[in-house]
Each structure stands twice: as structure tokens, then as C-alpha cells.
């Protein structure tokens, strides 16, 4: 079934990314809303099927595999892109919008990809786009974090690439289909590791709380939605029912809340909670029953909305006050009341409070785990639920907006209206889904005999008891949990150690060779060069001056371009490499 009546959402985002630099004057920021609206229209009108197969190498690149699973992820991606673009509309820096467009286009590309090679291409596009969303915060700290982020995702991408190529060699296909856990080969594990890097599976997660708090205010809103959830999608597509994911997911869920409990930086608290919440999804996928897979997908959908809103709320704090450290904030409820209200909608959603959408998705995953008799995993997820409410539901808002300490007295930058609009849309959807679960459940991918019913007296009472009494725990320990200005060591300590070790191993021999080479050059090469130079001078003096002059001018011009390109900044090289890669890709496609 190959049709051509599907507008791939990535096209509009890529087109805007290409066109944006050429717009002048005012009003161009409204164009940011066009690709999201087209994407939403496209997703809600498309019929399932196979669209857009590009002939490439021996196989086709399948750009548009549209089925229930890809539709539900693409739907929330499209809605989130509209929310994110509204929130970012006031930003004058076009580079940020271009990066966001490339990044979102990569996300859609992965979701609709029917083969692993297409997944890989868009995977890397996401990696490049998001790296720039970190760079463009334009502080020294964020540039360093951007490099670490890019290095890490490049390594993760290489695992994926190695896995898919070895798999091609063994099976002769790039097809992206479900892999049964029994009889999995080493290349399947390589692909799984590549996916797990982006899903922030502990201990491969430390890039996330390192980079996300350092991204731009608006960029991190995009990043918190797409990278990890694209990874959840590909895990759901390829690795459902893998036991290792069930355990890893539960570990993530608990690990994230433990770190969030002691963190001071608002957006880092939220970042650790991405690790935790994605843990629920990974666990659901790993357990692999119809209910847990649906729970994982529903939770991904709900999570994108409320986590986007949380990052928008924390972004407002950073935008207005210039800091996101809780020990420097406090008592802001009087001056930023709507930010507090909207933040709380998201905070109660992530905590699984009835009326909000976390209640209908999180409980579904936990109940699914319990019904599959995975009692210990379900217990781990319940423990994480308590920690979530303590950190995101109470600690963060308490120390930012309330608290009985001296309040934040500094200047507050007024928050533009469009940021409120983005947050209001997300907040409205969080509540709508919580109250009418059917508007989310209708899109779940796996057919279930009895759809889970969240709104029962017992579920509401249970949520009330768990959240109410974990709130009481916070009340008793509010002086203990007070955040401190500290850096908490995480696994990135080891990443840096490995990095330093690799540098030492690689650099020492190279430095040694370089030393010897310099000496040899000084002794022999330079003398030879001088002789050649003398010869050239003679040649120049005695003859073809015009030809030599002409050559000299061209060399000078080429040299100028060369010098410009070699700026010494890795971000320029990455961008240049991406452009070159696209050119090569186009050439191969055109000639092949």
C-alpha cells in the first residue's frame, strides 16, 4: 500500500529551517506556528499505510510508515511542537529556531521511519539540532556542556550504526521490526545500547541532567520532549518484552527521584525526573503486556505535555529572575502567580494526582505491572511516585514560590504573553486528558480486552493516600530537604575519567610523533624548502611572472576561504560536516 497523500511533518520543519535565515523585518515569528499546524493537520487526517519510499543503495529508505504506534507518538510530537513554538515566539535569535526546527524534524523522521538506516539519519539530525540548542545559550558553561552532549550522542549513534550495519551483513535487510528477546544477536544488543543512550537508561543517563539545565530557556522545552520519547518509541517498536528493559526501567524510575531529592537547580531536578518518568515507560515496554505497553505509550503522551509545561515553568523562573537555583529563589508566588498555577498543573500531573493526566497514564503502567505479577517492579514504581511528588510536586514549588525564608527581592524581567499561551495550552490538555481519559486512550496502539479504568473510587483514594502522606513526610522534613548549593557526583564523573584516559592514550603517541616530525622537518625539510624557495625566486625573476602572479592570487583566495572555514570552533565544523554529509547523501542518491 503505497500512497502519496501524506505530508511528512518533517518537510515543513526542514523548509522553515532553510527559509528562516532569509526573512527580514518584523512578523516572521508568526511563521514558526506554520509547521506545527501543518503537522497537526497531517497527523489527524492521514490514513495508516506506507508512504514515501526513496530508492537508496540496494534498499529503499522508508520515510513514511504510518501505523497506530507512529501516529500516537507523532500526534503528541505535533501538539508539543505547537506549544513549544508559541513559547519560543518572542526569541529574536533565529539560530535557535532553526536548530529547534531541525531537531523536531529529526524526531518526526525517526517516528515515521520504516527502516533502521532512516532512523539513523534522523537520529543524527536530532543530535545536531539539540546540540545547538545547548550551544546557543551562549554561556561558557553551556558550550562545554554542548560538546560533552554531542560527544556522547555521537558515541551512542555509532553503536546504533555499527549494530544496523552488522545486522545488514547478517540478515541482508535494514527493516526496522520487532526483535524477539530469545535468539537476539550481538548486533541487536548494539542497536539496543544506541537506543538506551537516548532513552537515558541508567548508567548511560548522565548526559541528560548535564545538558538540559544548560540549554536555552526555550530550547530545553523542546529537548525534554523529543530525544527521550523518540528513544521510547524505537524501544517500543523494536524491543518490547525484553526483560532487561523491565528491570532497567524500574531502576531508572527510582534512581531519578533519589537524585532529584538532593538537587538544587530547578531544571536539573526536572531533568532527573525525566530519567525517572522515562523509567516508567521503559519498564512498561520491558514487561511487554498489552496493558503495560499501552501504559508506556499513554505515559509518554502525558509526559511530553506535563514535562514540557514543567520546563516552561522553570524556564519562566530563569527568564524572569536570571537564576534557576532554588536557594536563590523563594516567595515568588505574589509576583509570578500564573507561573505558579500553571507549574502546579504540571507538577500534579507528573505526581499522578486525580484530575490531571499523570493519573490516567502512570497508574495504568503500575497496575499493568502488578497484574502481570511483577510485584517488585510495581513496588519500585510506587516508590518513585512518592519521590516524584516530594521533589517536583512540593519541594520545587515550595522553595521557589512559597517558603518562609527571605523571599527573592531582585528585579523580575516581565514574561512575554506568548510564553503564557504555550503554558496555558499544555495545562489545558493535561487537565482535559485527566478528566476525559478517552481522548488519550482512543489512540493507544495495542488492542486490549478490557481497557483500564482509572476513575474508580479505589484508585482515587489510593492516589490521595500516597500523595497526601508523602506530602506529610515533606512537611516533617522541610528543614532537612532544604536545597544546598552543591554539585552531586553522578556517572558523568566516570565519563570524564574515560574521556581523559582516551585523550591521554591517543595524545601521547601523537605528541611524540609530532615532536620527532618537527625536529626532522627543522633539520631536513626546512633546508630543502629554502633551496626550493631560492630556485623559485630565480624562476620568478627570470620568466613567467604573469602565470606565477595569477597562481599566487588564486592560492591566496583559496587560502582565505580555507582560513575562514577553519575557525577552530568545533560547532562550525559540526555544522559544516552536516552540510557536506547532506551533499554527499544527495549525490549518492542522485547518481545511484
Amino acid at each position, binding site marked *: 500500500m503505497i500512497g502519496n497523500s501524506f505530508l511528512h511533518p518533517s518537510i515543513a520543519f526542514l523548509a522553515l529551517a532553510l527559509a528562516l535565515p532569509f526573512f527580514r523585518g518584523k512578523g516572521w515569528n508568526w511563521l514558526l506556528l506554520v509547521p506545527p499546524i501543518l503537522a497537526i493537520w497531517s497527523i489527524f487526517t492521514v490514513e495508516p499505510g506506507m508512504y514515501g519510499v526513496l530508492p537508496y543503495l540496494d534498499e529503499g529508505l522508508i520515510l513514511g510508515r504510518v501505523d497506530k504506534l507512529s501516529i500516537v507518538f507523532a500526534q503528541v510530537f505535533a501538539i508539543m511542537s505547537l506549544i513549544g513554538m508559541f513559547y519560543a515566539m518572542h526569541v529574536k535569535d533565529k539560530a535557535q529556531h532553526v536548530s529547534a526546527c531541525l531537531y523536531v524534524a529529526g524526531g518526526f523522521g525517526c517516528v515515521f521511519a520504516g527502516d533502521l538506516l532512516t532512523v539513523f539519519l534522523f537520529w543524527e539530525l536530532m543530535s545536531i539540532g539539540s546540540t545547538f540548542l545547548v550551544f546557543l545559550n551562549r554561556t561558557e558553561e553551556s558550550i562545554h556542556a554542548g560538546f560533552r552532549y554531542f560527544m556522547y550522542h555521537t558515541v551512542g549513534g555509532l553503536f546504533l550504526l555499527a549494530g544496523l550495519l552488522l545486522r545488514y551483513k547478517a540478515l541482508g535487510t535494514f527493516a526496522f521490526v520487532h526483535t524477539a528477546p530469545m535468539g537476539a544477536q550481538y548486533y541487536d544488543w548494539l542497536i539496543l545500547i544506541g537506543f538506551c543512550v537516548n532513552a537515558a537508561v541508567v548508567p548511560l543517563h548522565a548526559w541528560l541532567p548535564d545538558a538540559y539545565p544548560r540549554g536555552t530557556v526555550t530550547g530545553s522545552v523542546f529537548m525534554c520532549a523529543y530525544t527521550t520519547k523518540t528513544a521510547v518509541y524505537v524501544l517500543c517498536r523494536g524491543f518490547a518484552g525484553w526483560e532487561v528493559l523491565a528491570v532497567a526501567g524500574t531502576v531508572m524510575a527510582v534512581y531519578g527521584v533519589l537524585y532529584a531529592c538532593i538537587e538544587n537547580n530547578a531544571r536539573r531536578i526536572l531533568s532527573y525526573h525525566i530519567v525517572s518518568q522515562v523509567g516508567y515507560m521503559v519498564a512498561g515496554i520491558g514487561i511487554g503486556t498489552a496493558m503495560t505497553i499501552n501504559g508506556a505509550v499513554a505515559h509518554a503522551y502525558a509526559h511530553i505535555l506535563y514535562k514540557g509545561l514543567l520546563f516552561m515553568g522553570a524556564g519562566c523562573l530563569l527568564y524572569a529572575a536570571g537564576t534557576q537555583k532554588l536557594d536563590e529563589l523563594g*516567595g515568588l508566588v505574589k509576583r509570578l502567580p500564573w507561573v505558579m498555577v500553571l507549574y502546579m498543573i504540571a507538577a500534579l500531573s507528573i505526581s499522578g494526582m486525580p484530575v490531571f493526566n499523570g493519573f490516567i497514564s502512570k497508574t495504568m503502567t503500575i497496575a499493568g505491572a502488578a497484574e502481570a505479577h511483577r510485584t517488585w517492579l510495581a513496588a519500585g514504581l510506587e516508590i518513585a511516585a512518592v*519521590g516524584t511528588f516530594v521533589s517536583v510536586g512540593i519541594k520545587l514549588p515550595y522553595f521557589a514560590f512559597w517558603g518562609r525564608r527571605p523571599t527573592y527581592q531582585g528585579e523580575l524581567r516581565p514574561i512575554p504573553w506568548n510564553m503564557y499561551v504555550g503554558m496555558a495550552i499544555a495545562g489545558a490538555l493535561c487537565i482535559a486528558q485527566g478528566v476525559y481519559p478517552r481522548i488519550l486512550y482512543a489512540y493507544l496502539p495495542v488492542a486490549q480486552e478490557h481497557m483500564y479504568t482509572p476513575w474508580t473510587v479505589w484508585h482515587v483514594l489510593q492516589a490521595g493516600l500516597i500523595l497526601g502522606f508523602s506530602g*506529610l513526610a515533606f512537611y516533617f522534613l522541610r528543614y532537612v530537604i532544604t536545597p544546598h548549593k552543591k554539585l552531586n*557526583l553522578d556517572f558523568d564523573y566516570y565519563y570524564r575519567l574515560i574521556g581523559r584516559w582516551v585523550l591521554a592514550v591517543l595524545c601521547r603517541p601523537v605528541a611524540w610523533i609530532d615532536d620527532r616530525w618537527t625536529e626532522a622537518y627543522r633539520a631536513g625539510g626546512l633546508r630543502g624548502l629554502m633551496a626550493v624557495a631560492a630556485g623559485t625566486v630565480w624562476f620568478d625573476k627570470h620568466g613567467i611572472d604573469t602565470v606565477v602572479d595569477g597562481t599566487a592570487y588564486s592560492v591566496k583566495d583559496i587560502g582565505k576561504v580555507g582560513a575562514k572555514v577553519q575557525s577552530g570552533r568545533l560547532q562550525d565544523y559540526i555544522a559544516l560536516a552536516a552540510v557536506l554529509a547532506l551533499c554527499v547523501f544527495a549525490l549518492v542518491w542522485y547518481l545511484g
Partner: protein
Amino acid sequence: MNEWLGELLDKWRQQWRAWRVIMFAVLACLVGLNFVFHPHEPHFGYDKYTGFWAIFGLGVGLVMVIVMKKIIQPMIARDEDFYDR
């Protein structure tokens, strides 16, 4: 609208004693309801007893915060410029 809401919430903030009473009342109500309503299929065994989830929420919350803040954080906390030095 912004100022109106800000004033209202700030007033509530100063009435924290009343909110504390409300909180304890709500918690008591929840436990009271737990005597009437029980899960159809208890998954964990102990959750068939009244008050299990209340003790679970309180216990996990207390243990998590105390262990992390008092035991784990002193071990893993460094100065903020630790990696930049």
C-alpha cells in the same frame, strides 16, 4: 488579573496555620475513607489492610529524604566548580 491573583495567593501564604489544619483534616478523611473502601484485588499482599498506602507514602517519603540528604549527599556532594578546576 496578575496582581489580583498574586495578592490572593500571598494572603493564603500568610494563613499557613489554617492550611496546616486543612491538610491534617484531609489526611484524616482519607484514612477514614480507607476503612470503607478497599482494593478489589490487592496486588502486594499488605495493601488489603487499612492504612497501608498512608504508611507507605509517609514511610517511603521519610526514609528517602533522610537517607539521601543525611547519608548519601554528604558523600557525593562537591563544590559547584568541582569539574571546572
